[in-house]
């Protein structure tokens, strides 16, 4: 290889690297710009009244408290259904399941569930919970729908967290006379907790931001009171943002941005929370 050849190759490399760098920042810079823009446009709308008041004047004024509360209720409801089931299924896959056709069927099902479009979940929720089980448009129906949608995410991350616990711990525990469940409860689960928690938070974050699944199962355009029972319909931040930006003529821009800001804030806080848990757990790991 003579020298000129290698300097040409290095030149290609510099150009190529430059191109890739541009691409990468093309991905990332819009995110930052978008966040800053929403912050700038939306911050003026944020006030105590905005966060704790009800919409008035046909949504064009007032606050978004019922939407905030609704999203919180739906998120909690989703957690109630998805978290125990998801973690339980993950424990089954990681600690009990053998390598057979049945296990493979479960895994394909999980992959499937993860890929189903959110609006199809909405249809399913409508058909099963709202109509067939007669829950009506309610927090219950919405939570169940969002819950089933969130389960595959929780199962994947929880299973990964459980599998990352070294097998040698399980062997030692068994050799000391522990049963399988004692081993899971005393060693495997405690070590996997932060990984599981990260996955749960990320799953719930996605559920909190979804509109399509709650469109026909839980969401209401306007409610004069906060929901008082799981059978009540509710407002919710994603749906509210959708409605005020597409269905309400003459909607003040800053209220729209303000609502978007609150929703993003909600979601991002969960995201940051999950990231912090993950890095702290990594630092404190004892193996």
């Amino acid at each position, binding site marked *: 290889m003579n020298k000129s050849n290698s300097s040409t190759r*290095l030149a*290609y*490399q510099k150009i*190529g690297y430059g191109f890739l*760098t541009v*691409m*990468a920042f*093309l*991905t*990332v810079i*819009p*995110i*930052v710009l978008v966040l800053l823009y929403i912050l700038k446009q939306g911050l003026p709308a944020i006030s105590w009244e905005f966060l704790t008041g009800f919409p008035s004047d046909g949504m064009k004024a007032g606050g978004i408290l019922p939407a905030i509360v609704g999203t919180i209720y739906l998120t909690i409801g989703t957690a109630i259904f998805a978290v*125990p089931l998801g973690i*339980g*299924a993950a*424990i*089954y896959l990681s600690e009990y*399941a053998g390598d057979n056709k049945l296990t493979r069927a*479960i895994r*394909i*099902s*999980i*992959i*499937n*569930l*993860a*890929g*189903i*479009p959110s*609006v*199809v979940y*909405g*249809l*399913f929720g*409508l*058909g*099963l919970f709202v109509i067939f089980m007669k829950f009506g448009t309610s927090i219950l129906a919405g939570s169940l729908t969002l819950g*089933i949608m969130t*389960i*595959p995410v929780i199962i994947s991350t929880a299973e990964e967290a459980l599998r990352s616990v070294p097998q040698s711990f399980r062997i030692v525990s068994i050799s000391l006379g522990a049963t399988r*469940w*004692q081993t899971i409860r005393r060693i495997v689960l405690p070590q996997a907790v932060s990984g599981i928690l990260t996955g749960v938070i990320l799953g719930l974050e*996605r559920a*909190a931001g*979804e*509109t*399509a699944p709650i469109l026909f199962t839980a969401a209401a355009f306007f409610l004069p009171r906060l929901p008082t029972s799981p059978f009540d319909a509710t407002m919710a931040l*994603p749906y509210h*943002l*959708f409605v005020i*930006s597409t269905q309400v003529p003459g909607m003040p*821009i800053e209220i*729209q941005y303000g609502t*978007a800001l609150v*929703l993003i804030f909600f*979601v991002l806080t*969960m*995201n940051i929370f999950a*990231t912090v848990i993950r890095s702290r757990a990594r630092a404190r790991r004892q193996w």
Partner: protein
Amino acid sequence: MKTSNTKYEFIITPIIKAMGFSAILFVVLIFYFLISEGIVTLKEVPLKNLFSTRWYPIEDYYGILPLLGGSLIVTLGAMLVAVPVGVCTAIYISEISPGRTREILKPLVEMLGGFPSVVLGFLGILILSPYLRILMNLSTGLTALAGSLLLAGIALPTIVSISEDALDAVPRSYRDASLALGATDWQTIWYVTLPAARSGVLTAIMLGIGRAVGETIAVMMVTGNAPVLPTGLRYLFMPVRTMTATIAAEMGEVAEGSTHYHVLFFIGIVLFLISLIINVTASALAIRSRKRAERILS
């Protein structure tokens, strides 16, 4: 010494097993409900109508082809942007970026992944569409192109993180061997690392496609919702309607049990099957690549 807890464990173990099988139950349940409300369509709507190019439910035109076409063109447009940008970003993060940059980039990409799609749709209406309209001198900015750009943003995080995982998983020894033969880092990436991560990147792209096809709210807000069959790329600059947006927009206005209602469920079945095919293929790819890697490395 006493033995412990066996009664308790007797109850817990079957519960855990049942939870494991619940995933199968849910898939079956969803499929069953879609079928039970949607398959009636085949009886109520003649096939010539169902697969025609006119979607106008008020006058009993239930042609789903424009909707399929709408989903197709918007997804295609999204992938034209998201695949190159996403894979290049993944390569950058995995192979080139210095540690500190990576620490900032990865969380940022993850953050984009967590963005509620309704916010993207919202920005699409307020910023992207008017901008496109002015830039390209169109009559309206609510077009397939706007939808494609938003979908690209939605699919990007999936493509980036899964590709990046695949690139990361390529053994160091491959890169070391290439460099030892005198290749530059750049040549190593394109001739060694990327091909080695090929199936993982393909999986990432397929999952990105799945995500794009399934997106509802963002496309509903910016694609203009005109159910016109796109027959060429110029339709990118015109309003279209996706299958997902159709269901979301019209479900609230149908009478339960009506033909229109059944057709919407039928579209749901189509979406379910499309995502089934995409996701199962993607994971089969992933499993095959892992098995191949195990064989090579053992």
